[in-house]
């Protein structure tokens, strides 16, 4: 398993990875991202929508909750393959013993008093809602 994961990592970015790696990848991913950022994708749907190791626009669009047309998928796939090829150049940089930077100007532990302040009333908060009912945001049904 560890060996396969390692070889997978070496192969990431290449399109021609065999089925065995796909399955390993699935097992590898399941614990981390299943269900993929929503509880609504069924296990079987996830199985069908498994990604190839390179950037798979169709699969990633599902993760991003973004419908795309077939034409968009084809265009983005070719354009983003180029971008991914370009960013691969970061692999040339030796980053061992380098700490990651999340913010350029580090600021830590910003607190303020937990006090109520004047802010929106409910009507203002709802003023831009595409749908509302009884003073609440109206949401598409979540459970069947």
């Amino acid at each position, binding site marked *: 398993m560890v060996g396969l994961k390692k070889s997978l990592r070496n192969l990431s970015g290449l399109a021609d990875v065999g089925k065995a790696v796909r399955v390993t990848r699935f097992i590898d991913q399941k614990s981390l991202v299943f269900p993929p950022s929503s509880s609504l994708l069924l296990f079987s749907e996830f199985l069908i929508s498994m990604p190839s190791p390179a950037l798979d626009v169709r699969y990633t669009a599902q993760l*991003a*909750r973004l419908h795309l047309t077939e034409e968009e998928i084809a265009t983005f796939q070719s354009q983003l393959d*180029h971008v991914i090829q370009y960013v691969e150049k970061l692999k040339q*940089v030796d980053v061992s013993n*380098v700490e990651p930077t999340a*913010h350029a*100007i580090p600021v830590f532990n910003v607190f303020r008093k937990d006090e109520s302040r004047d802010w929106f009333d409910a009507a203002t908060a709802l*003023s831009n809602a595409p749908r509302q009912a009884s003073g609440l945001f109206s949401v598409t*049904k979540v459970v069947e």
Partner: protein
Amino acid sequence: MDLAALSITELREHLRSRAVSPVEALDALDRRIASVDPTIRGYLNRDIDQARALAATADITLPLGGVPIAIKDVLNVKGQPCTCASKILRGYTAPYDATAIARLRAAGAIPFGRTNMDEFAMGSSTENSSVHPTANPWDTSRIPGGSSGGSAAVVAADEAYGALGSDTGGSIRQPAALCGCVGLKPTYGRVSRFGLVAFASSLDQIGPFSKTVRDSALLLNAISGQDPQDSTSVAQPVPDFTANLGRDLKGIRLGMPREYFIDGIHPQVDAAVRSAIRHYESLGAEIVEVSLPHTDYAVAVYYILATAEASANLARFDGVRYGHRADAPLNLLDHYGRTREEGFGPEVKRRIILGTYVLSSGYYDAYYLRAQKVRTLIRQDFTRAFDQVDAIVCPTSPEPAFKAGERTGDPLKMYLADIFTIATNLAGNPGISIPCGFAEIDGARLPIGLQLIGKPFEEAPLLEIAHAYEQSTPWHLQHPPLPS
């Protein structure tokens, strides 16, 4: 007197002496917009009645009292639309003021007009606006740069006395360079981002566009400072950025990064920037060659980190609390998928996909984490360089404005337009673009920008260095060939 052509500083003198009233200053601008904006298309909309009511009661004793300021369509101004030039926010009315806007108001300024931009600030040409493109005032067949192309174009075309924009990878400095005005990205944390629609939260910073360096200093005075509503705003004292403008440059050390003077820079840009550097020498500055060895990786780091942050930030556009919502969704997934499909334009979709991918399981370490580590190396490059110099001097953009439509099919080529501005956002340093000459291309005179990069929170010396160049050269006095 052509009021609309005045700088903020000049307008302030006329207002203070009561030679001109705030309403007259506003109306002059409105007439200028009516005359040239059908060609430039820098504004998405403006509410003259609301602005006139504010002008009528403006307190002209305040630092920006009675001065109308154009606002990029990414900043919330209470009661005005804020669409980020996106279909997904069509019809949205801001229920509150961004902190930068509240501070502009407190300084007496009048927010007037919403300026065009690339959708959600994603782009370098303003062609990604879902509403309409904006033309470069110097050659209307060319792009104004981006993403704050509207703010740059309206300042350059005398349709605004000054403007605010936002800069994530060069979105203030690059359009300022291409339109021939001044554009300043403050240090990350200098200006509160509260009320700025987030693109990439660790890189975004609000800053001014203006006709002169002094005007940018005035606007920065107004909008700077820590804000309890933005925990990344920094508790640094805010000096008067105009206090030492005009001091001489003897003993100042300017660094020329060798990695920024490379093949591929347009020869007329290279010549103008080198000539500007010689001019600095004649003003008493010492020029030192410095090295920023990880420059070549900045664009790659940026397009991983910025898209990753954008994919998370834009998750809020779910068709529930505000914005567009797809009709008759079959279920929640269909609701999200179609709302976002219908609301977002192609570049935003591309970046959401890329950002989602680099954050997804199995790729996070290879792309996102590695990019964050290379970001550390880029920051260290700047820290080392600033041990030797007071500011870095280089081109803002590798080329003058390109033709509309020329790059829209090739995102990577578009991304490389930001090659000289991106590293500053990654490192957090302040940067300013000022006019330093013109390229003559196909009969058009196209502005060239000089970029100066300063130490974190040292905008004051940066502005002083920029001001010294500006005041001893003729470039900021030129106006684009538009009907008066």
